[in-house]
């Protein structure tokens, strides 16, 4: 806990000096959202390691700075995994960073999001107090669900020092199958698998290729595979996709993400990649803000922009009512506005 005490001292001083902090883990997601320049940096990167892990409990409690890769390797050695495919954008990506950004990988529609597997957090508040919310049990309704509130809050509510996550048994067999087909065929294939009991655990349509991942018992995977056309592909495809390391992403300088309903039309947008059963859509290098004139449901995120271009908020603006609630929650947790000011909404200091 020495490190946590150091975090606490740092935060207390920042609070009394009125000197805002950039909270980070491995600093691998600075492309996402607004990061003001010149802030003092407090990183959890050195606070890494396992605090508690009994595989039979299906729960692991880790320090926030633990690299995602290290955590995955440990779980794998026990025949377990994190079900939500935490994306590791770089080797330094930490589990605390993934959860703080609320990021989930390819399995999201089929096995749930980061927040669905988060059971508890230990966090340092604006006044330096270390608090625990949630816990190391599967079911817990004592108090408001603060853990899930800080998941996806980009460190704007406090410093997440440690977290407890639900883990699941790893599947007996995992296979990726790819085939060339039309967009309508891709959609129909995914739909028929996701609307029946099937081992579908990921789906992606890119170029003219549909990739499907099946995970489960050998019996279930083989039974489903029999009815699918296509050739076997490498399972590492999904890590590349989740980490935005597919060639299409790497060649793009302006990456937009639309999170919508799977059945929503594509309208006139020329999406490069459609994953999450068509609910997550990637638009690369648009010439103007794609939100202008968008008439569908869902919300846009400007995920990465290397060349500036037109001005745009990274995240879809909130409604007036939502914004008021957010601001009141923010001032409850961070009355002095010292944690990651503006990371989510620059103008509003959120």
């Amino acid at each position: 806990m020495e490190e946590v005490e150091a975090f606490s001292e740092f935060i207390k001083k920042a609070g009394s000096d009125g000197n805002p902090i950039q909270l980070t883990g491995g600093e691998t997601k600075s492309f996402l959202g607004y990061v003001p320049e010149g802030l003092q940096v407090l990183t959890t990167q050195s606070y890494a390691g396992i605090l508690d892990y009994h595989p039979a409990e299906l729960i692991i409690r880790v320090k926030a700075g633990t690299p995602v890769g290290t955590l995955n390797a440990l779980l794998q050695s026990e025949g377990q995994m994190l079900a939500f495919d935490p994306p590791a954008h770089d080797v330094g990506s930490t589990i605390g960073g993934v959860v703080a950004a609320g990021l989930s990988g390819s399995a999201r529609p089929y096995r749930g999001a980061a927040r669905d597997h988060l059971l508890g957090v230990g966090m340092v508040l604006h006044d330096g107090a270390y608090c625990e919310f949630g816990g190391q049990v599967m079911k817990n309704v004592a108090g408001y669900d603060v853990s899930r509130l800080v998941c996806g809050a980009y460190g704007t509510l406090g410093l997440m020092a440690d977290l407890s996550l639900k883990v699941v048994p790893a599947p007996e067999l995992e296979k990726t199958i790819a085939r060339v087909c039309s967009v309508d065929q891709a959609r129909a294939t995914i739909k028929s698998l996701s609307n029946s009991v099937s081992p579908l655990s990921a789906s992606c349509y890119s170029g003219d290729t549909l990739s499907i991942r099946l995970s489960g018992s050998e019996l279930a995977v083989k039974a489903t595979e029999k009815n699918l056309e296509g050739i076997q592909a490498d399972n590492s495809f999904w890590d590349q996709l989740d980490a935005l390391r597919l060639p299409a992403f790497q060649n793009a300088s302006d990456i937009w993400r639309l999170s919508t309903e799977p059945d929503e039309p594509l309208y006139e947008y020329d999406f490069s990649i459609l994953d999450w059963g068509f609910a997550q859509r990637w638009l690369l290098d648009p010439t103007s803000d794609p939100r202008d004139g968008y008439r569908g449901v869902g919300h846009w995120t400007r995920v990465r922009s290397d060349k500036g271009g037109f001005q745009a908020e990274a995240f879809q603006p909130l409604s007036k009512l939502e914004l008021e609630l957010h601001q009141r929650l923010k001032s409850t947790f961070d009355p002095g506005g010292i944690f990651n000011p503006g990371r989510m909404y620059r103008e509003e200091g959120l």
Partner: protein
Amino acid sequence: MPINNQDFIQRLRAVARDIITDDERLAVYETDGLTAKKQLPGVVVIPDTVEQVQAIVALCHAHEVPLVARGAGTGLSGGAMPHSEGVLMVMARFNRIVDVDTSMRTATVQPGVTNLAISEAVSSLGLYYAPDPSSQIACTIGGNVAENSGGVHCLKYGLTVHNVKQLKVVLPGGELIVIGGKGYDTPGYDLLALMHGSEGMLGIVVEVVVQLLPKPSEIAVIMAAFPNVVDAANSVSGVISKGLLPAGLEMMDKLAIQAAEAFVGAGYPEGAEAMLLCELDGSAEELQVLIESVRTVFRTHHCMTFTVAWEAIERQKLWLGRKAAFPAVGRIAPDYYCMDGTIPRRELANVLQAITELSHKYELQVANVFHAGDGNLHPLILYDANNTDQLTRAEAFGSEVLALCIEKGGTITGEHGVGVEKINEMCLQFDRNELGIFHGIKNAFDEHGILNPGKGIPTLSRCAEFGAMHVHAGEERFPHLDRF
């Protein structure tokens, strides 16, 4: 005691015509599933439309009158216990399934729809709604959201929070807000999660979009008898350690088995000290493999009988006994006090042993029925409410069980909520900083504190009165309070 503010009642009547003010009819609503706590509401209002709900909430907000929302009143922690000076808003008329989207596998329902009614309505489409609290025949989805209800299938399929996509909520000022969506995420903070388990203290849910799941092709329920609770508890850990994730894994002890058997005749092994029900789903071939794996684990832990129910009617009979366990225990004692602590699974055997010892100490019988796979205990302490000494002992017994759950790294409530029942024990689980954050969240939504006051989160002075608060090592006790 009807509310003594004719002007307010008149304004309320102008908004919604169905209002109850006479003691006799108010008495219908004096308690929820926690019958030990009774309180006549100031006034009852039964709205028909969302606009009426908005107007009622806005009226209460303007006049700073307490407002408690009520679903079916099946809650076990007194979350819907009325306020003597306040309005009790009954959501019973919001009982319509608005829409079922088979492509998206979602159902849009009003909050007063019962949990079971959703699954029944979509059954012919090959779909169901997974969370299934034992009270599912009566409890409403609005109440399920308020409590973040679980059930016997949450080990594999999650709690309410994992199965709800979108909520329409009336905020304490009367504004209507949509939280979440049919997609997989929304911008900003996760208010959808925050609403779950907030016990009607942050807003009033007026519409819920739930995720439906395709029904599994085959289901098997294993019933196994054990010579003692320790072997049964170790079997539970054994199954999970083997990488198996049953759809449900439930345990009952001897007293609970006997009570359930006498009540519904489910075919339980009456002589056994403990019993496990283990539900598995998948293809017929998969199930064969899974059943053999479970059999191997159970045998290692001295299981005495092992039977598998495949047919729907047989399976339902087995679950009926489990789901009727609370009322069944209610038949063998005048009253029972239902606990809801959750502990790490590895502590099951120890905690069960400790509960047996407490049963001797307080000279009260206890029946254990619980979600073993989740480590969620439901000890039912048997007592007679007409005997004040027994009631006092039952409450002290319960409080000690909850303290034990916290000591073992668990929580005071897994799925029943805090309500009024466990408000003191909240002081054991959380310190003043943590409670401060909870109060801050409440205040961010409900600055006048009109929604369900006195529930869920204790005030610091209440904790001081209770004489206990969780303190982290080395911290002074109640440094913020004046010394007497």
